[in-house]
């Protein structure tokens, strides 16, 4: 089947407003879901789940959250890691302090706590922007880094802030093996990604983008900057918080505050820049890139080094990683601020017209 929309006429606005208005895209999406839910679990090894798929899914969720704020609402954040931490530690506290707290409940409550914190630390955005806001979000980062390390109540008096959680289950189904964890994360991600897509194509999403593109004009048509910005902070932090809780509960199972340091915040921001600001799909690309690149370099560089007779240390690999990330950030900001997602859609656009480009 050639990628074409010829002959696909829309007879209602409802049909035109679908997420994937082109039939081929819908099939592709369905295929992707089948592969993700059935194919991957059947074919993958435990290593792939632990090292790639589960981190990818969770970081994608976090990247979607950051993208809603940075890409859609135009508010910069350098403190996403802190909101992951808030989500993780809040979920932890809800699950150990309340008897019989179900896993999903703890995760969602963790997300809600992060959302509340997002509103608090997002409040400066009403008065300041750009790097001043960056500073406010960094303040959140350093404050929570400190709080989870030093305030013992948060970690149930565990030394060094290290906490752990085990025996995860959802309504009697255990979430223990890598496959179960993978499917659990995948299901959550699918629901949350769909919700994010819906938000961005409804009134609230348009309000965010309006604030991003031209805030004075947005106010004049009746958009309240306070509502738009704080709702973006809240929703974004909610996503990031749930991702943080998943990272702690499902991926790490025991963790300490360093898991959510400022480096994590930068990493999330980089995913959004590389993947594509203002694109839900871009969040996936960015997360995939950031998860896979270090593994790829770790395998490839020593091998390449051997070819030319050099031995490449792990330190050198990590330096190369730094350099490549740095260079890519600069490259994408200069050449394609909409990231891999835009490259993707440009490619699709070409394909739609191929082989007659005019």
């Amino acid at each position, binding site marked *: 089947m050639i990628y074409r929309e010829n002959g696909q006429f829309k007879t209602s606005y409802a049909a035109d407003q679908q997420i994937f208005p082109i039939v081929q895209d819908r099939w592709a999406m369905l295929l992707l879901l089948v592969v993700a839910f059935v194919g991957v679990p059947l074919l993958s090894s435990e290593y792939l789940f632990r090292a790639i798929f589960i981190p990818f899914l969770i970081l994608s969720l976090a990247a979607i959250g950051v993208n809603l704020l940075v890409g859609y609402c135009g508010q910069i954040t350098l403190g996403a890691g802190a909101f992951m931490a808030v989500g993780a530690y809040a979920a932890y506290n809800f699950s150990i302090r309340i008897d019989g707290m179900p896993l999903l409940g703890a995760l969602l409550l963790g997300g809600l706590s992060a959302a509340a914190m997002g509103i608090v630390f997002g409040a400066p955005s009403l008065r300041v922007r750009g790097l001043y806001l960056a500073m406010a979000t960094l303040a959140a980062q350093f404050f929570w880094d400190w709080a989870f390390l030093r305030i013992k109540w948060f970690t149930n008096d565990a030394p060094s802030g290290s906490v752990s959680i085990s025996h995860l289950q959802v309504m009697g189904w255990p979430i223990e093996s890598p496959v179960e964890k993978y499917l659990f994360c995948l299901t959550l991600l699918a629901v949350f990604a769909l919700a994010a897509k819906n938000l961005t194509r409804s*009134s609230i999403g*348009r309000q965010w983008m*309006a604030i991003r*593109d031209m805030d004075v004009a947005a106010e004049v*048509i*009746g958009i309240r900057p306070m509502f738009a910005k704080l709702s973006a902070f809240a929703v974004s932090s909610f996503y990031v918080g749930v991702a943080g809780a998943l990272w702690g509960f499902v991926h790490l199972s025991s963790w300490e505050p360093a898991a959510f340091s400022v480096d994590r915040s930068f990493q999330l921001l980089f995913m959004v820049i590389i993947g594509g600001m203002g694109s839900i799909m871009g969040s996936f690309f960015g997360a995939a890139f950031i998860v896979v690149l270090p593994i790829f370099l770790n395998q490839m560089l020593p091998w390449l080094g051997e070819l030319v007779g050099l031995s490449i240390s792990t330190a050198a690999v990590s330096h190369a990683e730094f350099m490549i990330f740095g260079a890519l950030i600069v490259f994408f900001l200069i050449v394609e601020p909409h990231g891999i997602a835009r490259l993707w859609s440009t490619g699709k656009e070409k394909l739609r017209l191929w082989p007659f480009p005019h």
Partner: protein
Amino acid sequence: MMGERVIGDVILDLRNISLAFGGVKALTEISFDVREHEIRAIIGPNGAGKSSMLNVISGVYRPQQGEIVFHGEHFARMNSYKAAKAGIARTFQNIALFKGMSVLDNIMTGRTLMMKANLLQQAFWWGPARREELAHRAKVEEIIDFLEIQHIRKTPVGRLPYGLQKRVDLGRALAMEPRILLLDEPMAGMNVEEKQDMSRFILDVNDQMGTTIVLIEHDMGVVMDISDRVVVLDYGKKIGDGSPDAVRANPEVIQAYLGASH
């Protein structure tokens, strides 16, 4: 819809408005009114305070002194949100569209105040959110038809030529279904053909939708042709007010425009 165009009562009354930036006086004790259904023009040389005046009406600037009465409601301190809620819409001199969004989405933002679905409903495209979205989409399509921009509805506005962007800017304001529409140099930088199109749209809006219009324009031909009454500003002060003919005959206005010594 076509009816006799009847100029009604005063809908917008500006009383003694003064505005200053630091020590610079932009507007000094300006009063004038706008009647329902009329087309009211504000003219004056560059830097006369015309845009400041629109910014005061739409709540972007807060005047130090004065009062705005709109539809019988008194506003000592107008802000953008209150203005939008009351039914005041505007366009911008240097197009202020949302560059990253499509034409359709830009115009849809004009409906924001009328959309009531909550966040959760929107997130799950739930009944009310979905119905609302479709209903407003239909309204917006009417505006798109009216402005003859069907072919570009999915195009990001950043890619459009200037003249079309101006039209989208107008569309976004119209989507608010305003009682009064403020147009800040809607024809600046256009060629003759585009100006004719824009004039036609403005007259149609006024005629068919009964919208009151306040506009700033430099092209005197257009102003004299389409407006019912004209206010003339110079150096932040009002120097003339009346029908186009009366204003044209006003010696102070002539002096301001010919640049005689002050």
